[in-house]
């Protein structure tokens, strides 16, 4: 009498962070972040709470459709949600994007690199997964530094959602990847 859908997110641990599946209790922190115009200036600006809820459901639900998705990222010591990272793959993207977002109160501590790095390692340990790409707004210097620190190589600029975007191709050790 039951259909078993495949995966929800596994739990990953780094030095300072836990990457895990989304939970209902994460919503308020998530919604507060995406309502912040300044913090979302590179992603198209603030969204209201209803849109935030739909997006949040979509992040949680992508796992069952794709078998991969974004992780909620929490501070190991305090249990606080500090942001998210993982493989975002809406239907209008041809391939998954390795993405990361850290809430303003937690930036400047290397959390984005630590979280995105863990998600990238998890992803690349699954055999035959191609190296993902990342996109950043041209003015989002902090995010570009994260991509570079992860070893990604810059590709050709493009547009996403009507916004200019830098393209980065991540590199998987031991596999040759083309930058395009």
């Amino acid at each position, binding site marked *: *009498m*039951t*259909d*078993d*859908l*495949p*995966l*929800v997110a*596994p*739990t*990953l*641990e780094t030095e300072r962070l836990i990457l895990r*599946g*989304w*939970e*209902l209790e994460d*919503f308020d922190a998530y*919604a507060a972040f995406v309502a912040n115009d300044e913090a979302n200036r590179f992603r198209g600006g603030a969204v209201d*709470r*209803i849109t935030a*809820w*739909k997006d*949040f*459901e*979509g*992040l*949680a*639900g*992508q*796992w*069952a*459709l794709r078998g991969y998705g974004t992780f909620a990222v929490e501070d190991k010591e305090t249990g606080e949600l500090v942001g998210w990272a993982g493989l975002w793959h*809406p*239907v*209008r993207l041809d391939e998954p994007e390795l993405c990361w977002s850290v809430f303003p109160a937690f930036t400047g501590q290397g959390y984005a690199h630590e979280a995105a790095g863990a998600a990238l390692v998890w992803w690349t340990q699954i055999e035959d997964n191609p190296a993902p790409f990342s996109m950043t707004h041209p003015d989002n210097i902090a995010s570009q530094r994260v991509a570079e620190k992860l070893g990604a190589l810059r590709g050709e600029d493009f547009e996403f959602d009507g916004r200019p975007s830098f393209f980065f191709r991540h590199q998987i050790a031991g596999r040759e990847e083309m930058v395009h």
Partner: protein
Amino acid sequence: MTTDYALTIPTLETERLLLRGWKESDAEGYGELYGDEDNAKFIGGVMAPWDAWRMVAQRIGQWHLRGFAMFAIEEKASGQFIGHAGPNFPKGWPEPEIGWGLVKRFHGKGYAFEAARASLRFAYEVLGWDTAMSLVDPDNTPSAKLATRLGATYESTQTVTSFTADVYRHLSPKEFLK
């Protein structure tokens, strides 16, 4: 370090329908449901085609986050996706509701009633709700009729997030399940 576990969505069976978990292929039928202007005006507006896939992800996401959400409805005889029904509780709703919606070419067969009734039973028997309501667009006469046929009564008109809806209060578990 990896803990995988399955997200389980039950299947409800009625005389002619299966209310089941979502499949990626349901996005096509969902696009038809939300792409039809007559239908979509009561449920938040017409969507871009790629939004249907996102809607499927959202339904599954709510199952994960809340432990319940709307089911996909499949016509048993044909195996076709025909719509959605079930418990629904987005943030910002005053309380959980029983929702339903069918692709237009499956209207007029009593399918929505059959699915809504199974959904309400599920909410009471499995989820243990002690009350249930449905939000109906004030101009959506067919849905208001269906709610009434289920035994629900008009309770109030409310602003819910960005829209106005009539609240129909369903029979209590005791009345409905007897």
